[in-house]
């Protein structure tokens, strides 16, 4: 079946006429979907004749996690990835007819992935040794597993279409307006899904103990942020290039680079070349195929890019466009810094501390954020003066309260400055998408600032009956009990506060894999959260308890989801306008 798909994608790549290419694309997408459904079914029914299924499922495992096993394993995720790329191709074939070259490039990507899968990473390899019994990694037995990886896959694969359209535009010398019209909805869709994927990953890393909080500048996180930043830069330059035709070389480079960077990041973290705390299918030897595919795509992209002709400059830049361009250059520099930090450990036996990214990116990102209201309100800067003064007052307020954390005034200023300036858009319904996304950004900045300046944590060693005080609250460790769950044994502590909030952090032991995981307990009051995680000490059964107070932490995900909603709103409203 895979071979047949491969055959179809080859036809889709080289066939001469539009009708054949289009039909091959649609058929191949359907066939890939059928193949994937078959694999999912094999996981759900635990059909152990397949090596992949036998090694990654366990009879005691709940059905949801078996389903996720199909997505989470190396071979399964690759099949899903290929299916999505084929699916995007099919959608594009239905929506924008007669664009043969775009579909050819898209089919080329599918055929490369399929040939890689068929040769070295076949998910349907039969089982040779029938005594093997495996299990799914218990660290990933979490509901977030069901939406975080699929969202990221949806976003990344959407960028493949951006790559294909840009390639076609460069090879066929499209007028730049046509390119912008074609690319805009797909770019927005991919960007929104990528945003949701990154935000959900950040949420998972936050409540899972030991993954370094909501953002730890881990290689995995950085390689997801890098294409996000590129997509952001690309999208913000679209209006400029649409009107003036300037920066075509840079913008088309971005269009090609988004997907290549995303795929390169996938290769880097999946090959095990970079040490990451996040668990997923890693495979040292076979992953080099991904690098090969990437090399082909880079070659194709480079060919297309070198062929590009200069677009005629229709109009000179206006103030707003120059400001946007400057801000986007700042974001591009942040992207370059992240790439530098990710790539250095590959060439030298060093690791880069998280503080590097914060300290190096902050001046550039802060400048870009400062320019945001200027760009929105240009050229009438006088409207901004009251907002600026108000934001300055808010920013200086913590100094009166004798809080001298340097990032607090900066963060408060930026968030008030951005939110106030974008709120003026509410009179123009066409701009609501932009408004929602930028207000989300402001809320996100507030959440990060609050976490950086007001977070508190403590480490307490205690036994049942003990009391302790943290952040002005009294906690009592009332009891410790053993329970058994679906496929694990749990040790549960009960900790109560004065106002009768109950925390039940757990230690779960999975006999099937001989692993112990820490399940933290959290209590939410408005937008702030208190989290308790625990571990047993070897000697006298006393517990070591890690407790953190995270002020306004929910703003981070509220803002992130707001950004994604704004982007989706912008896409849907434009498509709606198009049809009416």
């Amino acid at each position: 079946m895979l071979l047949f798909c491969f055959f179809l994608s080859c036809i889709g790549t080289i066939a001469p006429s539009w009708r054949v290419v289009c039909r091959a694309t649609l058929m191949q997408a359907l066939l890939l979907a059928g193949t994937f459904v078959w694999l999912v079914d094999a996981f759900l029914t635990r059909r152990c004749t397949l090596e992949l299924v036998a090694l990654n499922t366990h009879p005691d495992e709940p059905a949801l996690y078996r389903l996720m096993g199909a997505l989470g394993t190396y071979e399964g995720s690759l099949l899903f990835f290929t299916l999505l790329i084929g699916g995007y191709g099919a959608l594009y074939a239905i929506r924008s007819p007669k664009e043969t070259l775009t579909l050819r490039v898209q089919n080329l990507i599918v055929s490369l992935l399929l040939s890689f899968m068929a040769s070295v990473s076949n998910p349907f390899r039969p089982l040779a040794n029938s005594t093997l019994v495996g299990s799914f990694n218990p660290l990933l037995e979490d509901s977030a597993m069901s939406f975080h990886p699929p969202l990221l896959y949806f976003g990344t694969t959407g960028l493949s279409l951006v790559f294909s359209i840009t390639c076609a535009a460069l090879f066929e010398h499209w007028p730049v307006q046509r390119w912008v019209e074609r690319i805009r909805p797909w770019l927005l869709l991919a960007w929104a899904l990528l945003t949701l994927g990154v935000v959900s990953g950040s949420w998972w890393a936050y409540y899972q103990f030991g993954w370094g909080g909501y953002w730890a500048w881990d290689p995995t996180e950085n390689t997801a942020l890098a294409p996000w930043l590129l997509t952001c830069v690309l999208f913000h330059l679209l209006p400029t290039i649409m009107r003036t035709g300037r920066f075509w070389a840079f913008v088309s480079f971005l269009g090609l680079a988004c997907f290549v960077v995303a795929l390169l990041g996938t290769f880097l973290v999946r090959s095990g070349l970079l040490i990451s705390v996040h668990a997923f299918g890693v495979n040292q030897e076979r992953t080099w195929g991904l690098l090969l595919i990437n090399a082909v795509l880079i070659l194709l992209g480079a060919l297309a890019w070198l062929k590009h002709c200069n677009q005629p400059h229709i109009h000179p830049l206006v103030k707003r466009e120059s400001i946007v361009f400057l801000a986007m250059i700042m974001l591009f520099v942040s992207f370059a810094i992240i790439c530098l930090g990710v790539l250095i450990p590959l060439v030298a036996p060093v690791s880069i501390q998280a503080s590097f990214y914060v300290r190096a990116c902050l001046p550039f990102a802060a400048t870009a954020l400062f320019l945001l209201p200027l760009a929105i309100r240009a050229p009438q800067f006088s409207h901004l003066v009251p907002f600026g003064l108000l934001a300055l007052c808010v920013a200086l307020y913590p100094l009166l309260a004798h809080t001298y954390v340097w990032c607090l005034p900066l963060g408060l200023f930026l968030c008030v400055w951005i939110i106030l300036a974008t709120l003026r858009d509410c009179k123009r319904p066409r701009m609501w998408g932009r408004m929602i996304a930028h207000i989300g950004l402001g809320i996100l900045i507030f959440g990060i600032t609050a976490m950086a300046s007001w977070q508190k944590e403590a480490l307490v060693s205690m036994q049942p009956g003990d009391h302790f005080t943290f952040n002005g609250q009294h906690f009592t460790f009332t009891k410790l009990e053993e329970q058994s769950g679906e496929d694990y044994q749990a040790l549960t502590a009960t900790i109560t506060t004065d106002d009768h909030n109950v925390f039940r952090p757990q230690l779960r032991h999975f006999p099937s894999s001989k692993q112990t995981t820490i399940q933290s307990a959290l209590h939410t009051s408005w937008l702030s959260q208190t989290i308790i995680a625990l571990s047993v000490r070897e000697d006298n059964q006393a517990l070591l308890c890690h407790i953190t107070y995270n002020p306004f932490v929910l703003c981070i995900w509220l803002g992130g989801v707001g950004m994604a909603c704004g982007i989706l709103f912008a896409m849907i409203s434009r498509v709606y306008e198009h049809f009416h």
Partner: protein
Amino acid sequence: MSIFTRKRRRRLWILLAVALAFSACMFFILCTLRDSIVFYRTPSELVGNPQLNIPHKSIRVGALVAHGSLHSLPDGRISFQLDDGAHHITVRYRGLLPSLFAEGRGAVVEGRFHQDHIFYATTVLAKHDANYRAPK
């Protein structure tokens, strides 16, 4: 005189300004980078070369957690040994160990040596198995 037309002079200034901004950015980024690089060592490298233990400079050490070496100290710290087959170092840490941390498995610690030749870790990371499925 005719070489420096108004247009060319303007371009020259822009080029100079861009070059200046670029080098200033590079200087700033590289300075930040120099302060945040942490060297990655193995116990054998550290035991063989005492000059690698620069005081007050954070390093990362990666190896296997030795069997039978994990225990708690009276002051609440956790002590274990990292062994790469040839040499081992003693590590002390105060905090919760990550979910995948166990004797016989790989771990990466970040911290520094004190005068007593004991490594005081500020961060402990467990290296997960190279496969997606749970280790046996």
